[in-house]
């Protein structure tokens, strides 16, 4: 009998503390969720704005999105979201997520901004695990290398020159790191090819109104 009582007490105790813990987390979650969402959107918008200056478009970039199916040219194996910039309803540019699968230390995640005319608005590395001090020069805060892509397109340089210099192309590599820039150059080139094939469908069906309340930038 005593044993039963003991088991019951411990079970009640554990349940009680589980409820208290869950309540604590739930309460904090409720009180921070808005701020967290706001932060995430703001960070995303800031990243996008380094590629596409806010003055170049007048729509709500975070609302006007399109879901892209996985595509080998983008290196994506899940659906990805692309952000579309328009000015007075004319397409200006699109920001695609691309993945370079063959970095030195795993995949390199990129944001590739492509203007409607097919030239690059800019490229940024979002996430990578390249060697600090060598491969991480693809980050904007480490070196200006990634800025060289701006203005380039499929015809500039010529398709054969879309390689790092080591491979006979036009793009610099870094001292001590060829694999990282090679992976990024390839991924950007593929993203441009993807854009060329899908240009018209990418800008269809403006979606600024739907999901508007989910994406508003009010804290």
């Amino acid at each position: 009998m005593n044993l039963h009582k003991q088991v019951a007490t411990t079970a009640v105790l554990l349940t009680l503390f589980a409820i208290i813990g869950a309540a604590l987390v739930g309460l904090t979650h409720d009180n921070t969720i808005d701020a967290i969402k706001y932060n995430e959107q703001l960070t995303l918008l800031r990243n996008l704005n380094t590629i596409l200056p806010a003055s170049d478009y007048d729509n709500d970039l975070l609302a006007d999105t399109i879901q892209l199916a996985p595509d080998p040219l983008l290196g994506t194996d899940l659906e990805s979201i692309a952000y579309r910039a328009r000015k007075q309803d004319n397409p200006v540019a699109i920001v695609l997520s691309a993945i370079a699968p063959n970095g030195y230390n795993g995949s390199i995640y990129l944001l590739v901004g492509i203007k409607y005319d097919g030239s690059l608005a800019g490229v940024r590395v979002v996430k990578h695990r390249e060697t600090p001090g060598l491969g991480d020069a693809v980050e904007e805060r480490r070196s200006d290398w990634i800025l060289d892509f701006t203005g380039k397109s499929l015809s500039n340089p010529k398709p054969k020159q879309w390689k790092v210099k080591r491979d006979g192309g036009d793009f610099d590599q870094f001292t001590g790191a060829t694999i990282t820039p090679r992976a990024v150059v390839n991924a950007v080139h593929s993203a441009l090819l993807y854009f060329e094939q899908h240009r018209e469908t990418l800008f269809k069906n403006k979606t600024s109104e739907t999901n508007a309340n989910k994406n508003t930038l009010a804290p």
Partner: protein
Amino acid sequence: MTNEQHSITKDGLWTNNVALVQLLGLCPLLAVTGTLINGLGLGIATLITLVLSNTFVSIIRHWTRPEVRIPIFVLIIASIVTAIELMMNAWFHELYLVLGIFIPLIVTNCSIIARAEAFASRNKVIVSALDGLMMGLGFALVLIVLGGLREIIGQGTLFANAELMFGPAAAGLTLTLGENYHGFLLAVLPPGAFIGLGLLIAVKNSVDRYLKQRTANVTIHTASANEI
């Protein structure tokens, strides 16, 4: 300061330092100390967790039962860490982006459950909170020193990214030591963390030995003086 408080303080900061003596919580310690600010960020998060978990565990120490105390401690610690993670994400988002994956790892920092079990579950609330504070402070100091060392040697800067923590005004805090310093990669990479921690432990041990010898000498001197 009473004797007890004094010994808790000394224990946490030096004699029984979590990182240098107990060698607990090395995973986050070695992983985030690439820069001083990263070390400071995780140090503060761990410190807050330790104080809160010690306080809670001490409050409920009479209501738990020995058979289920460990699961209850784990529940408490996990809830606190999750709450801290959410709050950091909400209010220190930039720093959260840097430290992100290491915040949940605080749960796995054995020093927290170790203090809950070894100290907080047997002592009064105030003393337990003080123990959490001092243990956390000792851990944070090691994170800061190691982060600072690795940053100076690895990148030649100090206080880089201070704005992540203290707002845009702190961006000017960043010190660059030597214009043409290109950095020493080893210090930034994981082996640098191990070597750095090893050196810190060595320094602590040699300081301890020096102090011990000095006290020994003083005792001998006074002893011989007494004989004369």
